[in-house]
């Protein structure tokens, strides 16, 4: 493989795959696509029926363009399959389960085989090597561990590279800063807004954070201005990360040192950009909704999954020698909110409020950014039957509702009770969410 033209500074985890020629890549993608469609069709009843209805079968996929014959899969489909409806292998082969926010009360469940975990870690190892991280680096992973894929995903990838991983998880900002200085941490992973909070707290504490050189920021959108602020305050180079639990987790696409868009790993994902209204495929350079067909997933294959994220495929090649890039995200095609890195659907909030007799079903959501951290306030009407005139009642109802919201959203919110009938009623499309965070994208 000719490697001239690729800048000297670029490091590769898996050079052959990362710089594969477009002919070889297309051949590999087609082979993997046919295998994935067959796997889904034979082992997931949802796809057996869906493909039958559409009059298409794995044998009809002869070129990559034949993909358009396959119907889309939406988040609501996954919701209907809760919990194991999309699993394509017996439970004995599933070694991990993660969950992610659903559109209503139940979460979306994703499963992994041992090979899936291996594939996922490989992609993260590629990303981290791409931005210059090696086994000499000390990596502080300051995102939520557990059911959220961000923590364990990067943890496994960093361990594969051989870095020293500090699984610091979230919270306790002062301790996080002490660890950076005491251990000489060189690379940090967290949400961009938490990073700003960290920078400010460090300044108050007089901590230098001088060993930090690389920041990986993801799970929520961030702007070019924010990149500038993060880099000057933390003294590091900031890289954007993209992914979602439905495609294993973070790491599906990542910025290289050029930082002009994110490289998708095309051996593992087939991507399309569509017009969210018509479903028509859009040409490179035009913005639309990202649709992803994972090519190597075993436990839970998905066909043409509508991510809801708005981006475009960048026309030009990247000097680093890797495959086609997508632009940084510029919005959502649905009403999903990202609050402190956690995805929230207004429909989830509605679902919770409907289940609480103490409050009505009209509500308003306000989102603000206070000290770089997102705060969500929910206004809801009190049901008079639950109010005896005692102030104590209000506190009790408030606590119950915010508790129920926390259980479903995995997020602390402020609940404000208002008079019955005082919230706006919408006759057309309800505008229940007021986002006052300013420029995010």
């Amino acid at each position, binding site marked *: 493989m000719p490697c001239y033209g690729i800048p000297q500074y670029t490091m590769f985890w898996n050079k052959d795959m990362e710089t594969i020629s477009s002919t070889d890549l297309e051949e590999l993608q087609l082979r993997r696509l046919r295998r994935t469609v067959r796997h889904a069709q034979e082992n997931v009843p949802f796809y057996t029926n869906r493909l039958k209805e559409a009059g298409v079968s794995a044998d009809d996929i002869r070129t990559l363009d034949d993909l358009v014959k396959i119907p889309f899969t939406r988040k609501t489909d996954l919701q209907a399959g809760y919990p194991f409806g999309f699993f394509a292998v017996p439970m*004995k082969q599933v070694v991990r389960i993660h969950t992610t926010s659903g559109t209503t009360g139940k979460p979306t469940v994703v499963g992994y085989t041992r090979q899936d975990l291996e594939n996922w870690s490989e992609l993260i190892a590629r990303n981290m090597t791409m931005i210059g991280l090696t086994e000499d680096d000390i990596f502080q992973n300051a995102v939520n*561990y557990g059911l959220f894929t961000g923590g364990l995903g990067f*943890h496994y990838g960093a361990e594969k590279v051989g870095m020293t991983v500090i699984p*610091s*998880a979230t919270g306790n900002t002062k301790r996080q800063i002490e660890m950076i200085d*005491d251990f000489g941490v060189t690379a940090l992973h967290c949400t961009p807004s938490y990073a700003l909070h960290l920078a400010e707290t460090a300044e108050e504490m007089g901590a230098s954070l001088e060993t930090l050189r690389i920041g990986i920021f993801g799970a929520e959108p961030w702007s070019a201005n924010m990149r500038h602020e993060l880099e000057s305050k933390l003294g590091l180079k900031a890289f954007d990360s993209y992914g979602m639990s439905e495609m294993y987790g973070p790491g599906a696409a990542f910025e290289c040192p050029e930082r002009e868009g994110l490289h998708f790993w095309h051996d593992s994902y087939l991507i399309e950009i569509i017009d969210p209204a018509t479903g028509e495929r859009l040409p490179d350079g035009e913005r639309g909704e990202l649709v992803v067909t994972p090519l190597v997933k075993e436990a839970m294959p998905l066909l043409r999954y509508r991510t809801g994220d708005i981006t475009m495929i960048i026309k030009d090649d990247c000097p680093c020698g890797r495959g086609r890039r997508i632009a940084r995200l510029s919005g959502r095609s649905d009403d999903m909110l990202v609050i402190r890195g956690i995805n929230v659907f207004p429909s989830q909030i509605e679902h919770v409020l409907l289940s609480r007799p103490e409050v009505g079903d009209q509500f308003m959501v306000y989102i603000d950014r206070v000290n770089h951290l997102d705060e969500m306030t929910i206004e809801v009407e009190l049901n008079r039957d639950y109010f005896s005139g005692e102030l104590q009642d209000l506190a009790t109802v408030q606590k119950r509702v915010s508790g129920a919201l926390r259980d479903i959203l995995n997020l602390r919110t402020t609940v404000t009770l208002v008079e019955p009938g005082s919230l706006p009623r919408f006759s057309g499309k309800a505008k229940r969410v007021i986002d006052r965070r300013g420029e995010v994208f």
Partner: protein
Amino acid sequence: MPVEDLKKQQFRLLKTLVYRLYSFSPFYHDRMKAAGVHPDDINTLEDVRKLPFMYKRDLRDNYPDHIFTATQDELVRYHVSSGTTGKPTVVGYTRKDLDNWTTALARSLTACGLGRGDVIQVAYGYGLFTGGLGMHYGAERIGATVVPASVGNTERQIELMQDLHVTAIACTPSYLIHLGETAAKMGVSIKDDTSLRVGVLGAEPWSEEMRRRIQDELGIRAYDIYGTSELSGPMFTECSEQNGIHIWGDLALIEIVDPETGRVLGPNERGELTITILQKEAFPMIRYRTGDITVMYDGVCACGRTHPRIGRISGRVDDMLIIRGINVFPSQVEHTLMGIPEVGQHFQIVVDRKGSLDTMLVRVELSPEAFSDKISDIMSIRQKVGAILRSSLNISPGVELVEPGTLPRYEGKAKIVIDRRKI
């Protein structure tokens, strides 16, 4: 493995370890020199007694990484646990260390009857605490389906248990009782409405009575697990006999010593558990005084495993408290309070169990300068003290501010902790 062969292997590993540390670890080299012992003096397994003990304070004095015997590129993980004052205890791991830790747990979980086909909900904290990630790696090694539930959100934990057909849970025994009670309130019977059959419970002391209660009420088998982050993390459990925790002899050499004199005690004599980890690269441990009180059992277990067994941990030699699975040293509380000018040096810790969960209340005197009759002042000091304690202890204690001079003064040994829990 026959006991004799196991002992031979332990001796070989010990000899190698001592040579390696004498040659490459300045800390152990100096320790052995000071104790007048040379690797050539270690000629039988019992000669381990010639080696000096290691204490928790040695870890603190060498913060963060002066005891480590691995280079940065060999280290793949740090875990951090509560220290006795100020700085936490840091443990480093090489790839081989993680592998040994995982192997120990894989054997243990297998001894609890778990394997491929089981769905294991890991409800220990993930992150810096070793419980979550340790159990996660062990469960993954045996081929079970791991649900990394971590802590909190009890109702969601119960839903996951039902919906994902969970067969085993790893958490603290008090949390499992709490889970059972919450399930009952939701109208869910763990016994009849879930597939749960095994609990691997630890990180805090519990009793046979609690085991009986958990087993009867939840319809599961409950196994005790032991480990501390200094050793790597949770490593050893009971087997299906539920008669002592098997300590894998090829990984660890244990002694029970008199906490006062350091004299090695015989089988069935209660004393302090002292551990030498035989195969550890990054953070070697020779004769580490765990502070945990237990006994070593005599004879081979009915399950056929020849590795030594210890009984339940029945207490501590020091004043360490375990609150919801988190270790708390009163000295750490004292150190933290000393750093806050608004409060005085007199304090009291009240530990209780409300329902099945531990509560901790720190009562502290306001300093005369900060004493005020404005409620808002007092509220804001209380909030500040609570936040600082939370950040240093990793748990949220209640805080009660009292007037200067109202807490008892002690002439002799201060009785700072009032523990009202019955276990």
